[in-house]
């Protein structure tokens, strides 16, 4: 099933006789649809994927998708994906994963990186190309391994080694080597610290949590709901066609179906312990470091129809946001709250016009601070330039099949997890149903998007 067989598409008018068709553009955007998705269960750092590389996991997720939708040997328009913690040797991570997969080796691929919004950005970019008619099909992917994270040598040693590689004479080489000191040899592993502030993501969120006065109980309640909702979704078979087991893991390793408010209340706070206000953020209401990969199959209606594939949802629109966290003006993880009103305005919608809300649970308090912003008359007026508050949402529509607190959060894989799940939820809910996604990211960024049942 090569793409060249799709002779009946509406965009195949101007075609040269021999070349494999690249669809022409007539300037009219069309729909980009989500056909489905596939991910591997998410593992905890140091868990069953401890020896698996980003490329291993992305290929596994990709091959599961290929198997599910019969794409073996298919030339997909483009595969876009990425990882946040990336080895320098993985400069072409996604293309290498494609070459190792069952897809046609003529499938092009490119890497995307936007911290934890990498998966979302890959999906939005491919959707736009499909809408423009540049692509008929695309696969968005994301993967991260905190177990197989790159370790780099110190900057001092790196400078010396680079000088050494440029040295021509034995004397120059000796002089370079002689500069190496024992303390240069300590390796540095990546951290979740913001490069400009030195504060970890958790410490940043703790500042925002304190500023909005989010209680420990509210955070634990959200965390508990995440676990219970995810467990219920597994029990109902919701993930049966969204997941391929990997390394003997069949469910997200972090999931604790029997967690309770009492158990969560026992955990010690780990972030914000140096602030004046009581520390509220624990390992229970923060996402754990995780390993995993996800993929989403996107297409034009025609491409899906030709192959008899389902269309679950359309990617309607998306918006990115960013905040000035460096000077303490806004929270590091609040950019989604800033981007949503712009997205709503462009689409003529209110915050209440949705059947599902998927707000990535980087921390329970990230979600709760987002909601607090939208409910705050003052914040919406003064910081977002709105006429008033966006208002509250129906909490029973929030992260209904669980989110990152329960599933885990392999950074770049989270966007694909959310989009595939939400697309399926919308298809089940039926025509006219609509979902809102918000995924925050390091660097004070976020990508938000609207999906509708196809």
């Amino acid at each position, binding site marked *: 099933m090569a793409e060249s067989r799709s002779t009946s598409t509406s965009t195949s008018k101007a075609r040269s006789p021999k070349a494999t068709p690249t669809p022409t553009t007539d300037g009219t955007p069309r729909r980009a649809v989500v056909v489905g998705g596939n991910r591997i269960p998410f593992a905890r750092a140091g868990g069953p994927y401890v020896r698996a590389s980003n490329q291993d996991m992305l290929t596994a997720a990709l091959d599961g998708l290929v198997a599910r939708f019969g794409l073996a040997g298919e030339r997909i328009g483009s595969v876009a994906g990425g990882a946040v913690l990336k080895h320098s040797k993985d400069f072409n991570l996604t293309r290498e994963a494609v070459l190792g997969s069952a897809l046609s080796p003529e499938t092009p691929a490119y890497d995307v990186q936007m911290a934890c919004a990498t998966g979302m950005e890959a999906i939005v970019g491919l959707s736009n190309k499909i809408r423009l008619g540049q692509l008929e099909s695309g696969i968005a992917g994301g993967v991260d391994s905190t177990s197989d994270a790159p370790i780099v040598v110190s*900057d001092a040693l790196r400078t010396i080694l680079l000088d050494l590689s440029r040295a021509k004479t034995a004397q120059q080489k000796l002089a370079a080597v002689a500069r190496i000191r024992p*303390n240069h040899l300590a390796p540095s592993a990546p951290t979740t610290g913001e490069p*400009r*502030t*030195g*504060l970890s993501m958790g*410490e940043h969120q703790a*500042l925002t949590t*304190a*500023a909005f006065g989010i209680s420990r109980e509210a955070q634990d309640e959200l965390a508990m709901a995440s676990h219970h909702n995810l467990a219920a979704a597994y029990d109902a078979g919701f993930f049966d066609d969204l997941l391929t087991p990997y390394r003997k893991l069949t469910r997200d390793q972090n999931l604790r179906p029997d967690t309770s408010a009492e158990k969560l209340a026992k955990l010690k706070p780990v972030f914000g312990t*140096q*602030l*004046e206000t009581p520390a509220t953020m624990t390992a229970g209401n923060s996402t754990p470091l995780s390993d995993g990969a996800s993929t989403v199959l996107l297409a034009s209606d025609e491409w899906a129809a030709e192959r008899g594939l389902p269309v679950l949802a359309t990617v309607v629109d998306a918006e990115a946001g960013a905040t000035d*966290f*460096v*000077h*303490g*003006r806004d929270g590091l993880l609040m950019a989604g709250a800033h981007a949503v009103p712009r997205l709503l305005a462009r689409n003529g919608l209110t915050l209440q016009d949705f059947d599902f809300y998927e707000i990535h649970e980087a921390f329970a308090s990230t979600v709760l601070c987002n909601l607090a912003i939208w409910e705050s008359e003052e914040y919406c007026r003064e910081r977002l330039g709105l006429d008033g508050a966006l208002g509250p949402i129906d909490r029973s529509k929030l992260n209904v099949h669980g989110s990152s607190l329960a599933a885990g959060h392999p950074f770049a894989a989270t966007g694909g997890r959310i989009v595939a799940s939400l697309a399926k939820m919308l298809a089940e809910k039926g025509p006219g149903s609509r979902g809102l996604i918000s995924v925050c990211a390091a660097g004070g960024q976020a990508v938000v998007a609207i999906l509708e049942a196809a």
Partner: protein
Amino acid sequence: MTAARPEPVVVALAGVPSLGGLYARGVAGSVRPGRSRTVRSDDLPRTRLHVGGVSPDPAHLTDYQRLVGETGSDVLPAGFVHVLAFPVATALMVRGEFPLPLLGMVHLANHVEQRRPLTVTDELDIEVHAEGLAAHRSGVSVDLVATVRADDDVAWVGRSTYLAKGYQLSDGDAADDDRPRESPDAPTAPPTADAPLAPTARWRLAADTGRRYAAVSGDQNPIHTNPLAAKAFGFPRAIAHGMYTAARALAEVGPRARGEAFTWDVTFAKPVLLPSTVDVRIADDGAGHAFRVWSSRSGRTHLEGAVRPLP
């Protein structure tokens, strides 16, 4: 303060002096037997040391920018210009006519006016003089003023206030001195200034912070590089260079927020002992960006200051 001073005597140096040699002279001068611990307000030399044609070294600039967190731009960070002028100021302080000892001098405050940007291709004229000898509750303070010109135009002026502990001003009047002068070992900030603030950043300063800044700045004062030497001057451990912490704050304000022409003020309260972790707040205060650095453990202020646009 300078009005009554006689004509300055400009002494031209052939080039920027080497700090190593200056320190040797400074150490010798500081322990000179019979050195008087009482000085008069007109004891300051009329000398202005001048060095022309100073060409910034790109590799040196890069090392500085990396260390303090500046982007590798061709524009010289205001703190880098201070580093270029520092040997000239040191040369002035080790001359026999200078009434205070180099060794053990404490940096109290620093004020920089960056009037226009300087770049790596500019040829700089650096002139340094001393003024404002003043009584301080634990010694005598003095201002070293560096003026940096490019194309005969004053682009940068830096005023560094240093304290010689244990000295006395025989004819001084501390009351007419309105600049903030805090002793490094006295409880400085009033309680309100130590009220809890949300940090915007946290710096983990390693034990070798002083040695790394010394390597780039040339300021090899042993209180920054050697714990034993620091003990000899009354500090339990080596202390961070004030200008390193101030330069990091300036870098974090960032090029957009500070603009091309700005003032950069800092007052050093309590020295930062190495290693340590400090909380930092850098925020828009309406008139520019104010910054404060305090101990993550005790909450005591280490330094505070502001970066404000110049009209």
